[in-house]
C-alpha cells in the first residue's frame, strides 16, 4: 500500500482500458469495453449515452459493485493512483463510502424503508470509523442534512424514508454520499426520477458542494441538457465504448461523432414548436449481438464501407477524441 501512496496521481480517478463482462451460457459478453477516463479533483464530468450504453455498468465497476454474473475483466481503476482491481475486498470496502461514493437513480428505492434516517446515515460514518463518538457522528449527519437543504435536520434524523418526498430523499442520499468528504462521487442519473424544478435545485446544490470541497464528480445521464448545465467535460458512450470525448462546449457546438450529433439533435428545441422531434433510427444493439466494426454503423446516416473495420478512439485535438472513421467536419453546418 505504501508504494501506492508514493505514486499518487494528479487524477482523482483514472480508468485505463476498463472492460466489464457478463458471463452467460454462450461465454462472456462485454458490457463495457476499453473505456479510458480521467477526472481531476474538483472536476465535473458527464458520462452520456442511451440506456444500455454501459454508462451505469462503468459507474458500478468503479465502485466494485458489479454483481455476479458480471465482473471487471480487464484494465486498471486508479483511485488516487491506487488500483482498485488489485486491493483486497476489505480495503475496497473501506474505500467505498469513504473515498468514493455513489448516488443512484431512484430515490424511492435507495433508502431502506424500515430503518430510520439516522441509522442509515450514522452507519456510513461508523463503517469507516467504528470508535467514533455517537454524538459526534450524529452531529455530522445533522450538519450534512442541513447542508443539502433539508429543513429541521435535527428532527428529520428521526424520520423514516417514507416521510420524505422524492426530492428530499435524493437530498438525503446526497448528504450520505458527502458525509465522509469523498474524493470522488459517481452520480448515476440522480435527477431522472425527479421534477424538473427539483432537478435544477439538486444540480445546483451538487455543483456548489463539489466545488467547495474539491470533490470529483462523474454525472451519468442520458440527458444532454443536464450535462450542459453542470459539467465541464463530457464522455459520450455508445454500446459499451466511449465514442467521443471533449470539453462540453466544443462537443455540443461541433460534435464529431454522428451519434453525438444525433443525441444533440434529439433535444427538443424551443425555437421551432410543433415540428417533429428528431430521433436516431434503430436501437442500441444488445450486448451479445454487437455489430462488427464501428458499433454505430447500422444506425449511422453517414455510413460507408470501411465502417465495418474496427476503429479506435483517436485524438483529434489537444482535448478531443472521437471513435469514428469519418468524423463530421469541424464547423460543418448540421441539419
Amino acid at each position: 500500500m505504501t508504494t501506492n501512496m508514493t505514486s499518487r496521481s494528479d487524477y482523482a480517478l483514472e480508468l485505463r482500458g476498463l472492460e466489464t463482462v457478463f458471463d452467460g451460457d454462450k461465454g462472456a459478453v462485454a458490457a463495457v469495453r476499453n473505456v479510458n477516463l480521467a477526472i481531476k479533483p474538483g472536476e465535473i464530468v458527464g458520462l452520456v449515452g442511451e440506456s444500455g450504453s454501459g454508462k451505469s455498468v462503468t459507474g458500478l465497476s468503479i465502485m466494485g459493485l458489479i454483481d455476479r454474473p458480471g465482473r471487471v475483466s480487464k484494465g486498471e481503476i486508479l483511485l488516487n493512483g491506487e488500483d482498485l482491481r488489485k486491493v483486497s475486498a476489505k480495503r475496497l470496502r473501506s474505500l467505498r463510502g469513504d473515498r468514493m461514493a455513489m448516488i443512484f437513480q431512484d430515490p424511492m428505492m435507495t433508502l431502506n424503508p424500515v430503518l430510520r434516517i439516522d441509522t442509515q446515515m450514522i452507519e456510513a460514518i461508523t463503517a469507516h470509523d467504528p470508535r467514533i463518538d455517537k454524538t459526534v457522528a450524529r452531529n455530522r449527519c445533522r450538519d450534512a442534512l442541513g447542508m443539502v437543504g433539508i429543513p429541521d435536520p435535527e428532527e428529520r434524523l428521526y424520520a423514516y424514508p417514507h416521510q420524505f418526498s422524492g426530492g428530499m430523499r435524493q437530498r438525503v442520499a446526497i448528504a450520505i454520499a458527502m458525509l465522509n468528504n469523498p474524493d470522488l462521487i459517481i452520480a448515476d442519473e440522480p435527477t431522472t426520477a425527479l421534477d424538473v424544478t427539483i432537478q435544477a435545485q439538486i444540480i445546483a446544490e451538487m455543483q456548489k458542494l463539489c466545488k467547495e470541497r474539491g470533490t470529483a464528480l462523474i454525472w451519468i445521464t442520458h440527458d444532454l441538457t443536464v450535462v450542459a448545465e453542470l459539467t465541464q467535460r463530457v464522455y459520450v458512450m455508445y454500446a459499451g465504448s466511449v465514442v467521443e470525448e471533449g470539453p462540453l462546449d466544443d462537443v455540443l457546438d461541433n460534435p464529431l461523432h454522428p451519434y453525438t450529433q444525433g443525441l444533440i439533435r434529439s433535444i427538443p428545441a424551443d425555437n421551432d414548436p410543433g415540428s417533429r422531434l428528431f430521433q436516431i433510427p434503430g436501437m442500441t444493439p444488445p450486448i451479445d449481438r454487437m455489430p462488427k466494426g464501428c458499433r454505430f454503423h447500422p444506425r449511422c446516416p453517414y455510413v460507408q464501407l470501411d465502417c465495418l473495420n474496427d476503429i479506435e478512439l483517436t485524438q483529434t485535438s489537444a482535448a478531443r477524441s472521437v471513435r469514428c472513421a469519418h468524423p463530421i467536419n469541424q464547423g460543418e453546418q448540421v441539419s
Partner: protein
Amino acid sequence: MTAYLLRRGGQTLLTLLVMSILVFVGVYLVGNPVDVMISATATPQERAELIVRMGLDQPVWVQYWHFLKGALSGDLGNSFLYNRPALGLIFERMPATLELAFSALFLGLVFGIPLGVIAGLRPSKPESRGIMAFSILGFSLPTFWVGLMMILLFAVKLDILPASGRGETVNVLGVPLSIFTTDGLSHIFLPALNLALFKISLVIRLTRAGVSEALQSEYVRFARAKGVSEWRIVFLHVLKNTLIPLITVVGLELGALIAFAVVTETIFSWPGMGKLIIDAITTLDRPVILAYLMITVLMFTVINLIVDLTYTLVDPRVKIDGGSE
C-alpha cells in the same frame, strides 16, 4: 389506540355470535347426541327422560337462547359425555396443546430463519440446495407418517426418547408445563419436532425468498456503496425487511398449529385439546364442540391482533388506525 382495540373487540364478539349460531344449528341438524350416548339396551322411556333432562326436547332456538344466556355469564354448558363444565374440560387440556404449539413454532423459527438466510445468500451452493431439498420434504411428507417414523427410529430402534405422554410437569403460575423438566423436555421434543417440520420448511422458503429479493434491492446496493459491512447488511438491512412477510404468515400459522395439532397429539398420545375435540365430535357433545370453537376463535383473534401490533414495530409505514391519531 383504545378506539382501535374497542373496534377489534366488537368485531370479535360479532364473529363469536355468528359462529356459535352456525355451529349450534349445524350440530343440531347432524343428529341427536342421545343416540350415541345411551346404551343399546335402554328402554324408550329412559331415552325420553334423558332427552328431557338434557333439554333436547325444546325447539332449537329455545335451546340456543339458553346457551346464549349461559354464555353471557361465562357458562358454556356441561359436557353431555362427562357431565362437567365444557370450558373446564378445555382449560384442563389447553396448556398441553399451547405448549406443544409454541414449542413447534419456536423450533420453526430457530431452524427456519438461519437456514433460510443461508439458502437466500448463496442459492447455488450445495448446502443451499440441501436446505431447499429438505424444505420440499418437510412440505410434502405427511405429518402422521413422519411422526410414526420418528417413534420407530428414536423410541423403538434407538430407544433414546419416549414415544408418548407429557412426562414430568411442573406448575408455572398454576399451569402444568413439560418444558422445564428434563423428562418433560424429552417427551415434548419428538411431537414438537414433528409438528414443526412443516413450519420449518415454510419459514425457510419465506426467509429465502425475502432475503434474495432484498439482496437485489437498491437499498442494499446503496448500503454497500456506503461501505457498510456485509454482516450488517444481512442482519439489519435484509433481515428486517424479510421479517414483514414472515410475521404475517407465522401469525396465521400459529393459529393453524393450535387447531391442527390433533394429528400429532393423537400419534404421540399428547393429552391436549385435539383428542378432546375429536371425541366430542364423534359423540356430538355439542357444549364441548362449541366451547372449543369459541376458544379457538378467540385465540385466532388475539393472535391476529398481536400480529397487527407487531407490524407497527417492524414496518414504520404501518400505522394503527384508531381514528384518534
